[in-house]
């Protein structure tokens, strides 16, 4: 795909003798909304880790015209790849607000290390917290949050890095129906800002509502990729995933 934001080709990853990813291709255009689905253990999070750089695999990944291979994760997020963690990983000793100040200072703007930030990023952090409904808890220690709030914090922290591509790894798990709608609204809004989103999700209702395109991973291989109607009617997908 020409002009694509993310172009991953033949991404592989083995854990010992176990092949978690057996050559996966995935392209995402600027501002595109892609749903990534697949049964448990099919390699979705591993693919995210390869893109974010927290796991080193084979194959090639380009982002915004840059070859990602030599870049550590902190350089990738500065290019615009943000991810939320499937299992929330908040900065536990910090307040919710400070959790957001990290990406705001380190990823969104290259802030000189030996300065005190003058707190201008605080304003923005609060506005992002307002979006995800965490503003009232800005001063709480993040380790005191509920699981649901920690998921919202994951998302807020990813948004705070000013991404061009946001990968939400099961950001909706455990949320109530109204909360799912809230978060989906935020993710849908990202399109207005030209941010592409990969949504990894087991809840089909949310995936269908959100995605312009759906890619399906099964045991480390992509077996389908296209508009929702075509993908869901694909017999291979039915057999391997929906039919189980």
């Amino acid at each position, binding site marked *: 795909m020409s002009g694509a934001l993310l172009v991953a080709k033949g991404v592989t990853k083995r854990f010992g003798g176990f092949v978690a990813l057996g050559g996966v291709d995935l392209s995402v255009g600027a501002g595109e909304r892609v749903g990534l689905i697949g049964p448990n253990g099919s390699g979705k999070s591993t693919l995210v880790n390869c893109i974010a750089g927290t796991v080193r695999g084979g194959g090639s990944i380009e982002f915004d015209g840059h070859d990602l291979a030599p870049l550590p*994760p*902190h350089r990738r997020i500065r290019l615009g790849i943000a991810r939320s963690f499937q299992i929330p990983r908040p900065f536990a*000793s910090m307040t919710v607000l400070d959790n957001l100040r*990290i990406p705001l200072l380190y990823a969104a703007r290259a802030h000189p290390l030996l300065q*005190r*930030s003058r707190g201008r990023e605080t304003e923005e952090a609060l506005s992002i917290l307002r979006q995800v409904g965490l503003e009232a808890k800005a001063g709480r220690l993040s380790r005191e949050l509920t699981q649901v709030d920690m998921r919202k914090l994951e998302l807020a922290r990813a948004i705070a890095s000013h991404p061009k591509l946001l990968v939400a790894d099961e950001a909706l798990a455990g949320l109530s129906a109204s909360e799912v709608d809230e978060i989906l609204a935020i993710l849908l809004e990202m399109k207005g800002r030209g941010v592409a989103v990969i949504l990894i999700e087991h809840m089909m209702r949310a995936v269908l509502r959100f995605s312009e395109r759906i890619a399906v991973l099964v045991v480390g291989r992509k077996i389908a990729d296209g508009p929702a109607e075509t993908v869901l009617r694909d017999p291979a997908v039915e057999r391997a995933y929906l039919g189980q």
Partner: protein
Amino acid sequence: MKTSSFTAIALCTALLVAGTTSALVTNDYFFSASYTVLQFVVLATAWNILGGFTGYVNFGSAAFFALGAYSSIVLDKLFEAPITLSILSGTAVAALVGLGMGYLTLRLRGVFFAIATLAFAEVLFTFVVNWDYVGGARGAYVVLQGRPPLGFRSFVQFLFAIMALMAAGAVAIARFVQTSTLGLGLAAIRDDEVAAECSGVPTLRLKLVSTTVSGGLMGMAGATFPYFLSYVEPHGVFSLSYAVNSIAMPLIGGMYDWAGPVIGALLLGGLQQVLQVNVSADWNLFLVGALLVVFVTIAPHGIMGWTFRRGRRARPT
């Protein structure tokens, strides 16, 4: 408070304390005890930059302390270098070694890193014991000649004044690190290194800054040690007491804030001096151990964490 005002106040306080005590107190024991306590303020503060702010436990404090002490010995043997030069070079050598150790070991986490620092201290100890130029296992003499400078009545008074300035400087540096963007990044590393990296924090670079500054300050504390004792030998410089105290003091005072190690060092260091005079030096490590057990069970975030219940943290504002 701005960093510059804090630094100025800290240094002025040090000068004031050194000046008035020199004028009023005649007993040299007071200065030698105070010197030792302040030396622990520097060591604990330095340890805490890597251990408390960044979350990497260093068991090799004695090695960095020794690097400072032995670089002074070498300079003294070479050309009887002035003490300021010894302090600068001790700091620089320990900082460089901190950087190097960082490169070699920072890919290790948790207990593996701690063990690597312990091994490093052992290696350095063996090296020094076998290095004849600095006296090997026999040790070496460094004797300050002539009259004490700047009108001080004794060399101990003079060294106490220098240590007071170094302690003020170390505390100012620690506070500056904590309140800068750097400190927020270090706290992120301590909390979750992967999440920090994924939030744009250049973790490796920040950890190297942390090992360098921490190591350098420990070397600084050690650089004046040979002048203080006039005679040093490896077992004294590499004493277990330095490794244990520089961990215990921040733990007792609180590791998330620059003030924690200072409180811990004044408290624990002061108690040890009292114990040493009134009972015996052999009880010092026992005291440290007992206090550690008490604090780990009752106030795991130290005195600072206990005072500020809501858990303080790096807070650049």
